[in-house]
């Protein structure tokens, strides 16, 4: 018997602003945070939120994490005395690369000024587990704490790890999510040269005109807590994570399996974990990257896992509004899923206009749509897939 996992806090810093409310409000209104071909967190100024000492010792992905986790933990009641035993509170943050900005800066220092000038802070800033470690330090979280690294599925894997931790009683609460700040010259060149990014600079998931993803940066986190713990201390339950499934394609370094087999198995596992059938799914928050391959294979995966029901369920991609935030994406999308279920809406795939033969589902064009739960709490899945063939899917339910 596993424990039910409630969400008691949600935090996000994204190209749609600092704060989770802005994310869902602006996405639902069909706004886009993409400018000049990038999804930057333009409204994020680290100095507004962090002390000089904290900011200068943290790569941007950790700075974003501190603010997103701070928002989630504050909402969950961590402002003063920790409401849950710190030894039973975990922290897991995913990232695709970690502190790539620090790596690039310090490589330049090495080449221009020599080995002795390389910063003593380089290692603690660039390590991919810095976000989880620094967040745990700041909030005194002393349970399990680590980073997950699985490219664009890292945020979803982190949440999955947190869900299992709470389900199985290894922790009573866990702040989990993902962060990425990789809008650096090296990363831009590398993604462009592999043909992954959009030459037009437009993120158009599932649209016939899509030509690659738009790079973005973000962080988001959920406070996951056993329902029992949340109820006992009177915390507001914002939603539930009811299922988690993860698989590997074992197919290709970067291309998804065309049949969507790995992704569809992850969806099936998440639904089985949640004890929900295809008829119980009201919305899909898709991975939807705006690449030719992903959007076609994800569509296949949805049809495989959900059968005929796939044609009736609205499928939205948040990447249409903020671009691809890599290791943060799974967490930002899970945060947005929880918030959308709370509001009972499926936000739109912003800018979707032209149907593609290989993408033949309902991608919520135009504007947000009200969701009907047919008398039961609304339920959605949030998909995340990463280079390397990593698939992670979360099943979530409205409170």
């Amino acid at each position, binding site marked *: 018997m596993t424990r039910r996992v409630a969400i008691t806090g949600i935090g996000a810093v994204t190209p749609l602003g600092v704060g989770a409310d802005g994310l869902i409000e602006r996405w639902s209104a069909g706004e886009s945070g993409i400018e000049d071909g990038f999804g930057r967190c333009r409204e994020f100024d680290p100095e507004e939120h962090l*002390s*000089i*000492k*904290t900011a*200068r*010792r943290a790569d941007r992905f950790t700075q974003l994490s501190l603010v997103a986790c701070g928002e989630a933990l504050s909402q969950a009641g961590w402002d003063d005395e920790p409401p849950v035993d710190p030894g039973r509170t975990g922290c897991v943050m995913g990232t695709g690369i970690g502190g790539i900005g620090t790596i690039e800066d310090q490589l330049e220092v090495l080449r221009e*000024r020599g080995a*002795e*000038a390389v*910063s*003593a*802070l380089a290692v*603690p800033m660039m390590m991919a587990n810095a976000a989880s470690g620094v967040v745990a330090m700041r909030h005194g979280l002393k349970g399990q704490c680590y980073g997950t690294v699985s490219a664009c599925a890292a945020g979803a894997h982190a949440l999955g790890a947190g869900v299992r931790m709470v389900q199985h009683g290894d922790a009573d609460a866990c702040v989990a999510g993902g962060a990425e700040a990789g809008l650096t010259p090296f990363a831009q060149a590398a993604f462009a040269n592999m043909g992954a990014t959009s030459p037009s600079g437009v993120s158009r998931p599932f649209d016939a005109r899509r030509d690659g993803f738009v790079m973005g940066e973000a962080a988001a986190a959920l406070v996951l807590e056993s329902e029992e713990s949340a109820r006992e201390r009177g915390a507001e339950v914002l939603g539930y994570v009811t299922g988690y499934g993860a698989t590997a394609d074992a197919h290709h370094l970067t291309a998804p399996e065309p049949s969507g087999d790995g992704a569809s198995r992850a969806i099936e596992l998440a639904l089985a974990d949640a004890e929900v059938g295809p008829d119980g799914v009201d919305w899909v928050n898709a991975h939807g990257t705006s690449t030719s391959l992903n959007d076609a294979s994800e569509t296949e995966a949805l049809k495989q896992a959900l059968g005929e029901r796939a044609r009736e369920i609205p499928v939205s991609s948040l990447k249409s509004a903020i671009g691809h935030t890599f290791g943060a994406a799974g967490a930002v999308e899970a945060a947005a899923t929880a918030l959308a279920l709370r509001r009972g809406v499926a936000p739109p795939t912003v800018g979707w206009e032209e149907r593609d033969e290989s993408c033949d589902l309902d991608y919520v064009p135009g504007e947000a749509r009200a969701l009907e739960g047919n008398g039961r709490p609304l339920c959605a899945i949030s998909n995340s897939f990463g280079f390397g063939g990593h698939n992670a899917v979360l099943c979530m339910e409205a409170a």
Partner: protein
Amino acid sequence: MAAATKEQIEERMTEALVSFGAERDDVKRDADWESLDVDSLDLVELAQIVEEEYGVKMKEEDMKEMKTVGDAVDFVAERAGS
């Protein structure tokens, strides 16, 4: 390397400590590292600055002897430009 005065060294080290996050008003000769929230990572950075700008090596065992801002300034001033 031009010889630096003790005042110049103190000003440069103060500037470095402020950039690490210490309050300028708290950085005084008799202030100890703990009161400035300066830890071992900050001291390594300070040593890098001192070596690059004054050619003075502050080794780990030297740093263990330095308890205050004044200790560090004196250590560097004694060796700088000599």
